């Protein structure tokens, strides 16, 4: 299971970076979103993915004796997802506004006021 997730994370990061190197603003944003999702999965992976092992110490023990699903990374991802949702929705609106103003999706057309140095 973990090896698949690792490959998936690598794919997310690679495709995110690839899209960020393009000149289109929409692709830049999609690239950022993909990289963010890769990060979330990476944190998920850090919390030991096991089935049916809640982090509850048994009656006869005082410490964990076997591997358990760590709840902290899951709560971290939840926070990260909410935050990135806010940022992404802001960025999408911003892109729409910029497209309305400049009439272009090309990052190279963003320097219209750069004529005067």
């Amino acid at each position, binding site marked *: 299971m973990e090896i698949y997730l690792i490959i998936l994370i690598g794919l997310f990061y690679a495709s995110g970076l690839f899209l960020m190197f393009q000149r289109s603003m929409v692709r830049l944003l999609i690239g950022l979103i993909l990289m*963010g999702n890769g*990060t979330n999965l990476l944190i998920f992976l850090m919390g030991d993915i096991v089935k049916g092992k809640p982090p509850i110490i048994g009656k006869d023990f005082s410490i964990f004796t076997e591997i358990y699903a760590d709840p*902290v990374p899951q709560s*971290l991802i939840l*926070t*990260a997802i909410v935050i990135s949702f806010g*940022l992404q929705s802001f960025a999408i609106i*911003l892109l729409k506004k910029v497209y309305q103003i400049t009439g272009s999706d090309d*990052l190279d057309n963003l320097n219209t006021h750069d004529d005067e140095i």
Partner: protein
Amino acid sequence: MNNVYIVLPVIIHMITAILCLLSWYSVNIQKVLSVIGNTAGLIVSIFLLKEVYTGPILTMQGGGWAAPFGITFVADTFSLLLVSLTCISSLAITLYSFGAVTRHRMKYGFFVIVHFLIMGLNGAFLTGDIFNMYVWFEIVIIASFVLMTLGGEKPQMEGAIKYVALNMLASTFFLTAIGILYGITGSLNMADLAQKLAAIENRGIVNITALMFFVGFGIKSAVFPLYFWLPSSYHTPPSTIAAIFGGLLTKVGVYALFRMFSLLFPMDNFMQNLMIIIAILTMLTGAIGAWSKINIRRMFSYLIVCHIGYFIAGLGMFTHAALMAAIFYLIHDIIIKTNIFLMAGIMYKMKRSFNLEELGSIHKNYPYFSIIAFLILFSLAGLPPLSGFWSKIYLFGEAISLERYALLFALLFASFVTLFLMAKIWAQAFWKQRPEKFDLLEDRKDKYKELKWNKKLILLGPVAFLLMISLWIGFGADLFFQISDKIATELQNPELYIKAVLK
């Protein structure tokens, strides 16, 4: 020592922001609330700074959960110093905004966003939990996105795309690094992390994580290969907002770098060399970039990049004197960078341009303002005995005694270029006779002259207030060196921090 009041600088700004949000339809009530909130925040933070400066490090365990489990807030001298400086800047900026920000920007929540931004900054300075720091950073950047785009003019939108994209990328790096850090240690509390990281055998992965933090915070604080978003976005918003950005936002990245590389990742030879090389390149490119500009706000944006190099150099050398100098420079820089953008706003009001070719005759028309501007410009350049001078002399001394001559050259080069540019601004904008054709243009007419005296006062007051503090830093340097000395000691002995948090 446990003290719940250290979260007050965060809470006060949060309450102010919420109250401003509730009085959305009345800008005047928002103004009053904003001044009250800022003043209260400033008083509380100065009081706390005094407490910590003379006593032990204060902590607050969120919800009463003991250190490695709950979220910890830690107030040592470094964080409270930055909180105090942030509160001073934000008070000056809010007052200035009454005269400078147009009514339609204020109506769409200018004060609300400013207070959320300051809340985020204070939180980032005070938190002792790495994931919590990420959350504060996100609050800061989402608030700064809104401030960047507030008003919706074309150049603002174009600058915002670059700003938003690079800051989101920086957050991704930061979050990735936190994820790996949690994977190898199983902890998020910074004091606990410091202990656990030191015990890890596999140094390779620790160093990779350190580098990922360096890239993440490097983008935020605009160091050499990662600074391009800053000069292409900071000149676009109105001067008030540019002052918040220029004075405060890059410094939170610098703070995080200082915290990370003193507490979590002890400096080794490789990291020191890397930082010093990056500092050299940051100073050189920033200085050359500023040199090539004739628009004063673009020049100041590049100078922000250039002077970030001083902090990185101080951190890279990591001796007591170098850290002390870097902290002293941080005190000076937050105040002066805020002030210089506010001053540029007044100059724009007078001559309706940021372009050095179109500026001129300010000294002839406004001799008293020119005195203020002269002191601000040459404080930034570090003319003795003004505030920029003291830290630079220590940085030069450390570079010589460590025999880092390339660094010494870069420090001198950056200083001389700054001095040269300030002299250039002085000669071109203040002394030069303005070409007559610009005086005749309708959109270059002097708008400052027509203002009523109270409007003039509200613009000049905050600038003079920040200048007073700059002069105090320069002439009363002894006190600030003592504070910097204490901070440098704390940074070099992270066990003080660890002991205060974990007991």
